[in-house]
């Protein structure tokens, strides 16, 4: 048994500066940060090697938990999801969660949620007769204004024009599961930067 002399390190996350952890046989027995659920629930992130305590990252269990939060977004994007709620789904602290999510999936949870909502809105604009306002509410946006701005940032045109281009057209014969998985709009670099600033 011993106390880590250096800050523990997780491959996905930043080094956990300032955190002191007591480990035995690679298992975390105590942590100076009671809010940091990950060090308690994922003791395999930290492993003691034969020469002192050398961190041995093990990303797979981390990914499994992050994916739970990502799937929650895909399932319940229409609800008012916030990052703390998503972090709870992944059994992580909020700050830790956003960083880890971005490392794993290349964007923050907020950006992912935003792009999922816009993707679902595009689907509704293509395939239903609902108004833009109705669709913005349907996908969980707080206001028509923020919805329209996000839509334009991501899709490159206003939702009304996107709808006009598609309505009346026969939708392309692409299975819906693939549009769900593959057609979240990528958006401009300014969207990605703005999202990064908003993260957390």
């Amino acid at each position, binding site marked *: 048994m011993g106390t880590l002399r250096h800050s523990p390190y997780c491959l996905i996350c930043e080094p956990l500066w300032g955190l002191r952890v007591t480990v035995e046989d690679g298992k975390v027995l105590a942590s100076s940060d009671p809010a940091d659920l990950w060090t308690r629930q994922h003791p395999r992130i930290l492993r003691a090697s034969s020469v002192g305590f050398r961190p041995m990252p093990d990303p797979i269990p981390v*990914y499994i938990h992050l994916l739970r939060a990502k*799937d929650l977004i*895909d*399932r319940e994007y229409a609800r008012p999801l916030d990052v703390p709620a998503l972090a709870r789904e992944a059994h992580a602290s909020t700050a830790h969660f956003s960083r880890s999510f971005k490392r794993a*999936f290349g964007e923050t949870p907020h950006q992912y949620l935003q792009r999922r909502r816009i993707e679902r809105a595009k689907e509704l604009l293509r395939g239903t007769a609902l108004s833009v306002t109705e669709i913005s509410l349907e996908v969980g946006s707080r206001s028509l204004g923020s919805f329209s701005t996000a839509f334009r940032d991501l899709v490159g045109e206003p939702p009304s024009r996107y709808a006009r281009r598609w309505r009346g057209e026969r939708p392309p014969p692409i*299975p819906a*599961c693939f549009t*769900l*998985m593959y057609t979240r709009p990528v958006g401009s670099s300014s969207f990605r930067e703005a999202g990064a600033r908003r993260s957390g």
Partner: protein
Amino acid sequence: MIDKLSHTTIWVLDQDEALEFYTQKLGCEVHTDATMDDFRWLTVILPDDMGHQLILLEPGPPMMDAETGEQVKALVAKGVLGPGAFWTKDCRATYAELSARGVNFLSEPEERFYGIEATLRDNSGNWFSMTQPSEEYANPRG
């Protein structure tokens, strides 16, 4: 002429856990479970599709080096791999049945131009469509 696709490889994080999921949750049956040295050949079938084996395979040595194996596992765990689509005779009933067994669904059954479809994930991270195909989609030649 090629007749049909008979085997599909599904990369899983742990063969025992995958076996439990595919048999207990999805309703598959074991076709072959054979071990030679360290290699375990594990395939399952759906009771109504005995001619198509799903190979539940753990990425890693000796087929690939350990580091590559970990990379493939990471892709599976991150949920980016979708091995294919299941068909069902009744999407809504099967959705209710599998949900009750704890299967994680990404989308609920919805009407599509090709039938009724839900999307599910296995316990490794692989995603699948689960579709009740319409008559004309199932039999495009009529």
